[in-house]
């Protein structure tokens, strides 16, 4: 996260490969389900033996003594509808919810988050020197109206995407944050409105940031968890 600061985002998880290295973020939407992005995974039937999610700690690589850390193996990957670029990861066992680990809400189906809503992104990714890369960083971004964004991107905005406004200070996601949440405050609850996907440049000051619009896939998410 560029332009953020250490903070608490109890639904943000770190996804780690067999070497225990953090390589992408994710969001805990049910005790046993995490949402991330397809871009981070080699295939929809990848063998994820040895891959894990880490929750409940603010540190990217916590010491063994961190009392709240939970590390849970990933049991299965389910790819979302074709254009969604989303995946759901089923954990081998449910996460334990506490002050450090919480569920993020899912938006109603096809809900459009109003422009100007207070949102934030979170992750352990690259800070480009603007923060402490060993900690979870959180940055606030305001939602940009669909039409405005569509115009700013010269008509290249898809219906499956949502935008946040560029900030002159350069705030945004970067390497290692992909798959993490764009969480927006709605009715006093934090809702997973977007998922961070790679863009050509981090924290642009001259263009909106794009996220996958989760509400478009809320029915698929519920269906996967039900099935």
């Amino acid at each position, binding site marked *: 996260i*560029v332009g953020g*600061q*250490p*903070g*608490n985002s*109890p*639904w943000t998880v770190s996804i780690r*490969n*067999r*070497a225990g290295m953090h*390589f992408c973020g994710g969001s805990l*939407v049910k005790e046993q389900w995490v949402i991330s992005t397809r*871009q*981070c*995974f*080699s*295939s*929809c*039937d990848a*063998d994820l*033996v*040895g891959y894990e999610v880490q929750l409940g700690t603010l540190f990217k690589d916590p010491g063994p003594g961190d009392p709240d850390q939970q590390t849970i193996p990933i049991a299965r990957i389910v790819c979302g*509808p*074709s254009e969604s670029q989303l995946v759901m990861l089923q954990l081998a066992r449910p996460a334990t919810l506490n*002050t450090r680990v*919480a*569920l993020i*809400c*899912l*938006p*109603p*189906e*096809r*809900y*459009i988050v*109003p422009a100007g809503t207070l949102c934030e992104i979170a992750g352990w990714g*690259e800070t*480009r*020197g603007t923060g402490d890369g060993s900690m979870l960083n959180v940055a606030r971004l305001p939602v940009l109206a669909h039409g405005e964004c569509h115009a700013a991107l010269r008509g290249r905005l898809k219906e499956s995407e949502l935008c946040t406004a560029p900030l002159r200070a350069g705030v945004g996601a*970067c*390497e290692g944050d*992909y798959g993490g949440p764009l*969480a927006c405050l*709605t*009715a*006093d*609850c*934090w*809702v997973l409105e977007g998922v961070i996907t790679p863009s*050509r*440049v*981090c924290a642009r000051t001259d263009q909106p940031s794009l996220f996958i619009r989760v*509400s*478009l*896939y809320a*029915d*698929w998410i519920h*269906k996967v968890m*039900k*099935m």
Partner: protein
Amino acid sequence: HRSPLNDFQRLRATELLAAPAAPLLLLPEPGSAEQCARRCAASRTCRAFHHDRQGQLCQLLPWTQHSPHVQLQKNIHYDLYQKKDYLRDCIVADGTSYRGTRATTEKGLRCQHWQATTPHDHRFLPSPRNGLEENYCRNPDRDKRGPWCYTVDPNIRHQSCGIKKCEDAVCMTCNGEDYRGTVDHTESGTECQRWDLQHPHKHPYHPNKYPDKGLDDNYCRNPDSSERPWCYTTDPEREREFCHIRLCTEKRPRTPNITTSCFRGKGESYRGRVNVTVSGIPCQRWDAQTPHRHHFVPEKYPCKDLQENYCRNPDGSEAPWCFTSRPTIRIAFCFQIRRCPDELDTQECYHGRGQHYHGHISKTRKGITCQPWAAQAPHVPQISPITHPEAHLEENYCRNPDNDSHGPWCYTMDPRTPFDYCAIKPCSGNTVPSILENADTVAFEQCGRRDERLQLKGR
């Protein structure tokens, strides 16, 4: 510090089934796999043993899978350990320990039974200890040329069998990541440690954790994309060492399915020219050691195409990556490279949400065959012709009985994939409007709440 298991080859979840006529004389005894191996090595007749991991029991066996009237069978309760010497079809050192079943000479002559003294009389007679069985090639007198036998040709008394050395039997391509031969000594001759043991050296490469790296027994392997196969050694003073494996001389295999404008899977076949990270930092050249020292030297990885400073994936990481030109960032994934589409082409399209699609497509977008709607396996359906009689759930054709906004779907025949969308696309100009613009009508339960004080403290 060598484990007695070093002499054994393990087959997981497998048992040896012998013909009923051969009763097992020994009853199972308690013990770890290593204790079993020690007992088997001490026994004159034992050639293999079953190890019941759960019950910690072992059953010594006087035969192997190469013995007559014996066959392998899946059995999740046992791991089968067989003495390597009886399984190998190659030799170590001069082959005096060879116990394979080859019975012809290098010129193709049949071997004379050791028990027989015609056509050639001799003094190497079988005993319970010397392994002179049937008419198999053996090396009872440490002949430098390896195992030999008397021949059935009266004019040719004995001949070498020409059995290859193990280190030459199986060659390796590229950096040997796919090598699956049975060399189990390092280039200095030190014996390798088993991958499934943590002594004398603790290590992260557990066979269960890396199922695709072939980390069998104590054979040389290359799980971390080093320049060639290696192993942890049984010498406490030397943690790991390369092995000497012959490089295949025939033409280097072509890298399959090369892509340049996108990447497939982990991107190991990506050969495009993207040379910056997502955040726009130029990549470091692979043939440079600054600002980051590394071992991926292009000359040592000829198959990985480590040209210039292009994003590549020489080590099986999650995606193409590079060392960056910024001293503070050692590596970065090049996730901005697009993934190649990996779905089937679609012949048909559907209108709206496809609720009225009644075509005959019965494959998912990944090409998996659909499960019949009326079937109960591999997935027990929540939606069936009984629960949705009006939905035309015929055969295993793609349908949309629950008005899924992403189109027709089906349960699949892949046990790991309960359902998936089908190889059918929405007809063009077919969008479903988005709704719910004001937040007042929205309510949430048991989610999205956190201790905001923690947020403020930020510590």
